[in-house]
């Protein structure tokens, strides 16, 4: 294992003791945050959407995450509503995760070939 500086390791590779150093060295400027968002978006996009036989799974997982974040955002407000009104929202909520899970499971089991730049080595001649 080469000696990579702590700051440049990915989060999952950082040991617990090194976490403080890692956090201190990361770029939290607006440009840095935007770059991080862009990297995260590209990773998700190239893994789930930009594939040969993409299905509904890629977008459905994104929308399910959006629904979850909206729920968290509104939690303060929703917790004050009585149980009866809550049910009507919950029912619609059940359909969505089931659909997402089914479609994302199916997407993995098909032969998903991520479209990477290195895979397009086929020339016109054959």
């Amino acid at each position, binding site marked *: 294992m080469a000696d990579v500086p702590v700051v440049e390791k990915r989060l999952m590779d950082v040991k617990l003791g090194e976490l403080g150093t890692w956090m201190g060295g990361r770029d939290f400027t607006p440009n840095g945050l935007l770059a991080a968002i862009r990297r995260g978006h590209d990773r998700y996009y190239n893994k789930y959407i930009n594939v040969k036989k993409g299905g509904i799974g890629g977008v459905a997982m994104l929308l399910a995450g959006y629904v979850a974040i909206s729920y968290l*955002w509104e939690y*303060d407000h929703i917790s004050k509503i009585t149980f009866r009104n809550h049910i009507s929202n919950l029912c619609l909520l059940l359909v969505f995760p089931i659909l997402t899970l089914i479609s994302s499971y199916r997407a993995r089991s098909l032969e998903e070939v991520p479209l990477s730049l290195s895979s397009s080595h086929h020339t016109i001649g054959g």
Partner: protein
Amino acid sequence: MTLSFFDQFMSPTLLGIPLIALALTLPWVLFPQPSTRWMNNRLLTLQNWFISRFTQQIFQPINLPGHKWALILTSLMLFLISLNMLGLLPYTFTPTTQLSLNMALAVPLWLATVIIGMRTQPTHALGHLLPEGTPTLLIPVLIIIETISLFIRPLALGVRLTANLTAGHLLIQLIATAAFVLLPIMPTTAILTSILLLLLTLLEVAVAMIQAYVFVLLLSLYLQENV
């Protein structure tokens, strides 16, 4: 109790950031940028197909100077249709239920069409205020009426979109509440109400798409008159 049904239209905040900020930026993520490949992924292919069909449909009757508006009208259509459809998901916030947003979209675009008409061909633009073949006595009355109808257009554009979406969301919430309140008391009526709810949800999906289309179509009509 009635007031709580309208609470869904207030943008709730978390750490000071309103949910509308997330709701407005989400359509950006859903329309990725095409790569330089000859054939893109399925999502992009579908979106490209839709965009080209839509642009062709809207801009066929408009003459050449109006085609400069293709980018803004098509992107407006994509924005509205994605905002409307995303609002049908549970717990999400629909920005187009806010009158302020719809007026902010309608008034500048309508005003732009009017100003373009007045600057490039003022006679022709003013000529729209009087339909052909009106009896002479009616001319003053008709000009007043047409002027009023001209100025009411942005109001109508904004309010139409707001009212349709707000009414739809409210209806869904009311009927859903009715269905679940009735479930322990009268199961048959509850099942009928649930069927009604299903049909209503389908209608809402249709309304979401249609309203976006109508908005852009009317703008293109106003453009056609003036350009």
